[in-house]
Every structure is written in C-alpha cells, then in structure tokens.
C-alpha cells in the first residue's frame, strides 16, 4: 500500500505540511518530525501560529517551542543517537524585525513595531506577512546541512485554503513591487520554493472522498501558481480491517449489532481503500497511509508508534 516514499526525509531541506482543517496536519507534522529524528536527523519543527498541542505530541511540555528562539525538545534519538527535535514559532512581526535588522534598520524596527506601523506595512502589500515568514524559512534553510544546525526543517503550514495564498505570496509580490529589497527577497524566496532539493510540500488528507477531492484541487493550484514540488502525500487515519471485509464478502453476516458493526466497518474499509487508490492514481510522487489510532486524544506515545511505521517505510537515510 505504501509506495515510493523512499528518501522522504532527505529529498528536501524544507517540508511544508499542508491540508484542510481536521485532517490531522499537526499530527502528521509531529509524526514526520519524530520519524526523521528517529532515523538520526537533526530536525527543526516550525509552527506559524504556536498551535497548541504540537509540542506535546513531540514529547515536550505545552509551552515548548512557543517563541521565536525555540526549544530543544528531543535529543539522542535514533540508533546512532544523533537525532534531535527542536521547535520554534515564526511570526510575521518577528520576521519583519529580523528582516529590518538585516537591512541595517534594527533601531527603527523596534519603533515600527511598537507604534503599530508594522500593521501598515503588513497590510500595505499583498502577502507581505507571508513573504516575511517564508523569507525567514529561506534563511533557516540556508543554515541546514552537515555543517549547519539542522538536517531537515518541517513546517506545520497554514490550512489548505491559506496554504495556496501563503506559498503564492512571493510570486505575487515579485510582480506587484517594482523595486527595492522586498522585491529581491520575493524573487529569492520564489526560486527556493521552486527548487525540489530545497523545498517540498507534504499534502495531508483523510481517506474520504471530499478531502481527497480538495487535495487534488489544491495540488493542481500549487503546481500551477507556485511551481512547488511535492513530497509523498500522507493519507491520515486509515482504518482497514481485511478480516472483517472478507467475512462480509463471504456473506457471513449475522443479525443484530454484530452484523451492523461488521457491515459498517467493511463499508468504511472499502471507502478508505478507494480513497487511497485515488490518491495513488492522481499523485505521481507517491503516498503513505498512516493507520487510524482508536483514541479521541492522540498522545506523544501514539506519535512514536506512527513514526516507527513511517520510518520503516522510508528506510534509513544514506
């Protein structure tokens, strides 16, 4: 069922995780982070809105990684004890201060932020806030590699609708702004997004028709308007019971709740299989199914279990 996901952790320096609300984007971010750290990589997890829960899924405390400087949550992971997970939050305001500082405007940056002028700047041009955040990510990507701080950066991206406008921002700004430092920034970020060795998008979906439809739509939009490459798609929450399905197929259905329960599970299993097949057909880059965990509150130990399944499918990085 899981094909072509080799090298998922090393195919690119930056993985942006995207998917519509409720598909488990944050869970998948945590699973990929844990799996790649267990494979020995030094991972930086970036959240854009300090989404609650992510730090805990990674085994940290709720407040970990909520600030710009970040928190080291896990170290000494993997067989060679080299794997680690650091988490930080990147917001547009802080990215702007950073950016102005690199332009030699550090003092002014403070004044701009405190006077509310940042609000003006952030709303003055389409997507300037997104560009600033992506600019910061590009800077962080520049610091990855054997001699750098991290091997892989994973971003818990914005929800699907926003993912398109978020990743489109640099291309849009490169067109709207006629000159100046932001324009060069936009052009540089755009070329990073279009370089598959530097950046890929991980689309997440649940194995149901409507989310898969939206996944296909979003993927097409991102390909056309951003030119970004994709990592294997993660189909999250897959529940397939082949034993139940084969009993139903053999017509061995008893009356009462036992029969109702098996028909229900078999129908769900068939829907999930169908959805996975559609993702396989439509997404040339491959896909990976994460099994459903029968719980209402996923915990860090569940993430470890799922990460183990993913790591085995990806293999150890060379």
């Amino acid at each position: 069922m899981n094909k072509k996901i080799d090298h998922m952790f090393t195919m690119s320096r930056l993985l942006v995780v995207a998917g519509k609300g409720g598909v488990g984007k944050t869970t998948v971010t945590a699973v990929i982070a844990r799996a790649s750290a267990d494979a020995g990589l030094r991972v930086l997890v970036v959240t854009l809105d300090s989404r609650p829960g992510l730090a805990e899924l990674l085994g940290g405390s709720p407040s970990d990684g909520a600030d710009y400087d970040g928190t080291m949550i896990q170290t000494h992971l993997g067989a060679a004890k080299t794997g680690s997970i650091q988490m930080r939050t990147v917001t547009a305001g802080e990215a702007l201060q950073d950016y102005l500082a690199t332009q030699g405007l550090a003092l002014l940056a403070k004044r701009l932020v405190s006077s509310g002028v940042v609000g003006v700047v952030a709303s003055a041009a389409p997507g300037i806030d997104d560009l600033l955040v992506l600019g910061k990510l590009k800077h962080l990507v520049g610091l990855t590699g054997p001699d750098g701080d991290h091997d892989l950066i994973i971003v818990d991206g914005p929800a699907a609708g926003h993912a398109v406008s978020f990743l489109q921002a640099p291309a849009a700004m490169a067109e709207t702004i006629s000159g100046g430092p932001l324009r060069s920034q936009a052009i540089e970020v755009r070329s990073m997004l279009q370089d598959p060795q530097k950046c890929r998008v991980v689309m997440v979906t649940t194995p149901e028709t409507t989310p898969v439809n939206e996944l296909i739509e979003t993927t097409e939009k991102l390909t056309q308007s951003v030119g970004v490459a994709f990592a294997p798609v993660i189909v999250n929450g897959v529940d397939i019971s082949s034993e139940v399905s084969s009993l139903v197929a053999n017509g061995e259905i008893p009356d009462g709740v036992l029969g109702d329960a098996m028909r229900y599970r078999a129908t769900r299993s068939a829907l999930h299989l169908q959805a996975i097949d559609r993702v396989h057909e439509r997404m040339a880059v491959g896909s990976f199914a994460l099994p459903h965990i029968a719980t209402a509150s996923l915990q860090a130990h569940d993430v470890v279990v799922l990460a183990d399944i993913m790591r085995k499918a990806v293999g150890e990085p060379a």
Partner: protein
Amino acid sequence: MSPKKVQSFSDIITTSRIIVCCGSGGVGKTTTAAALAVQAAHTGRRVVLITIDPAKRLADALGLDGLSNDPSRVDLACSGELWAMMLDARSTFDDVIRRESRDLEQQQAILENPFYSNIASRLSGSQEYMAAEKLYELSNDARFDLVVVDTPPSREALDFLDAPQKLMNFLDHRVYRWLVMPARGGLRLLNFAAQPILKTIGRVIGADVLADAVNFFQAFDGIEDGFRQRSVAVQELLKSSSSTYIVVACAHNDTIQEAIYFTEQLAEANINITGVILNRLQPPFGKGSSAASLTAARKADKTGDSAVAVLYRNLAHLRSLAEAQENALKPLLESSSGAVVVRLYQRAEDVHDLEAIAELGRDLVATTTTR
C-alpha cells in the same frame, strides 16, 4: 429580554430568526448548517443559508455555482422555502463601499485602489465582517424568516463577533489618521511622503505601494461614519437574543478544546450557546461495553470459532472508540451545561447530496438530546 428556553433542536429551528454555526475547521460545520436549514425549510420556514467556501460537492448539491453573491432558490420539495448562497467577501465589501460612498468619484477612487483590493480580500477579519454584513442584510430581507450562517473557520469565535469592530479599528487606526492628516492640512502627498519614517517604509515595501495606501485612506476619508453606524448595528444584531449560537464539534481532543474555548469566549461576550452538535461520532452499536465484547471474542478464540472472534473483536474495537470519545466529550458537555446537545453519528458513507443532508437534518431533530 430573556430568550425563551429551548428544549430541542426542533425548537431551535422553529423559533430562531438567526442561527450562527461556530466550530473549528473540518468538523462538518457547513454540512450541519445545511442540514439545519433543510430541516427548517421542511417545517414550513423560508430559510436562507449563507455558506463560506463549501466543498465542491456540497455546493453542487445546493445548486451553488459561486457566480452570484445573492441567494438563489434550492430545488427542494418542502412546505417552506430553501435559499442558499456562497459568500463572496470581495463583492460584499464592494457593495458596502458603493452604498456608503458620497458620490461616484469617491466610489471609484476606493474600488480601483490596489490597496483596497488587498484589504477587501486578505485583511484578517474582512471575511468575517462580510459574513456578518451579509447576515445583517438578509435578516432584514422580507423574503426570509430564518437566516442560517456558517462562520469562517477560525480558532477565535470572537473573530466573527468582533470583526465589525476590528475593521473599524483598522480604518480608524491612529497611524492612518496620521497618514491622512497632511492631506487635510492642505499639504501635498509629496511633502509628507518625504517624512523620514515614511521614506523608510517606502524604501522597504516600495514607494508605489505606500502611495496606494495613502491614497486609499484619503479617498476613504468621510465615509467612516456610515461604516461605523452600520458596524454598530451589525454588532447589536449579533449580540441580540435574535441570534442563536450553535457550536459544532467532533470527538477529537483538539477540536473539543477549541469548542470549549469558543463557548468560553462567547460567554465572555454575554452570549450563551443554545445548541451543541457533536458530529461524526463513532456509533456504539448497542448498549454493551467494549470489555464485554472483548470477553466474548476471547471465549470464541477458545472454542476455535475464529469468525465469531473476528466479529466480537470488531465490535469491541468500535465500542472502545465510542467510549473513548464519550470520555473526551465530558469537559465540553460541562462547559456548555445550559445548551441542547445532539449526537450525530458517523455514517458508513460520506454525506454529500441533498438527500443525505436532509437525512442528517431529520436526525438532528429526531435524536433525543442527552448529556
């Protein structure tokens, strides 16, 4: 005035004038809002449903093509009427500008300004405000006696309630007052664009972008009063007893936490949640426990009846998930103690056509509400 005590979702759809559906993304808010609207139309009411970015199949089921920012009649055999529309925040904003502008010249100066395009389509809160604006407009439309609105996905329930105020604050911001001021003093744009701080901003974001912003606020000058009055009226409506709030949640810890946060935020704004819809719950299949089914599975293992063991193990699996969900839901039920609660179970098949939505609507009113 204190609103009448509602006992069931049947009461909610027959007595409310406005139903606001809140909830985080992916909980099935649009589908449940549609189910409420369909069911209300079946009780004879003339209902209009405002949806925000519905999935394509749902939009198709409701006959929405996204071309119009006005409601169109849904082909539904019922004793009332069902109308639906897909919110187009940009066109709604354009309509507001057209209504409030003093003349055609001002209207054009605003509508054609690139900075305005950005605010209308991207400024945080503008989609929420336009949903509220449309709600206000349709609640005063004699064609309808119930408006059901699906709110934009948000982690802040108050985004929707506060959006009118937030937008006013934005347009009223002292920085903008200050941007517009020199023009009022008769200074030319050129002069004040030469001020050091503006020069610096211009250097970073580009001088033409800044000029658009300044032009926008100058063009906007004078119509804030109309905007403000309207936003006060919209906010009053949202906070009045005419508006009934419903929270939609699924049984996952994160969406439950978000739903609790929503109810707390609404309570702070003196708004009570009238109804809670627990959506896509795992059906428990009978009254027995997962432990009992597991015991039965083990018994079957011993007697070598493997097919029976599979059946009981399957039942145990589904029931244990249902039990875990009920446990996880407890804090939400506590935090919304005054509200009517309804449980909608996950269907074996996806809900995407009008018939399945209508069925969901029947379940909403038929299910006995239990805490």
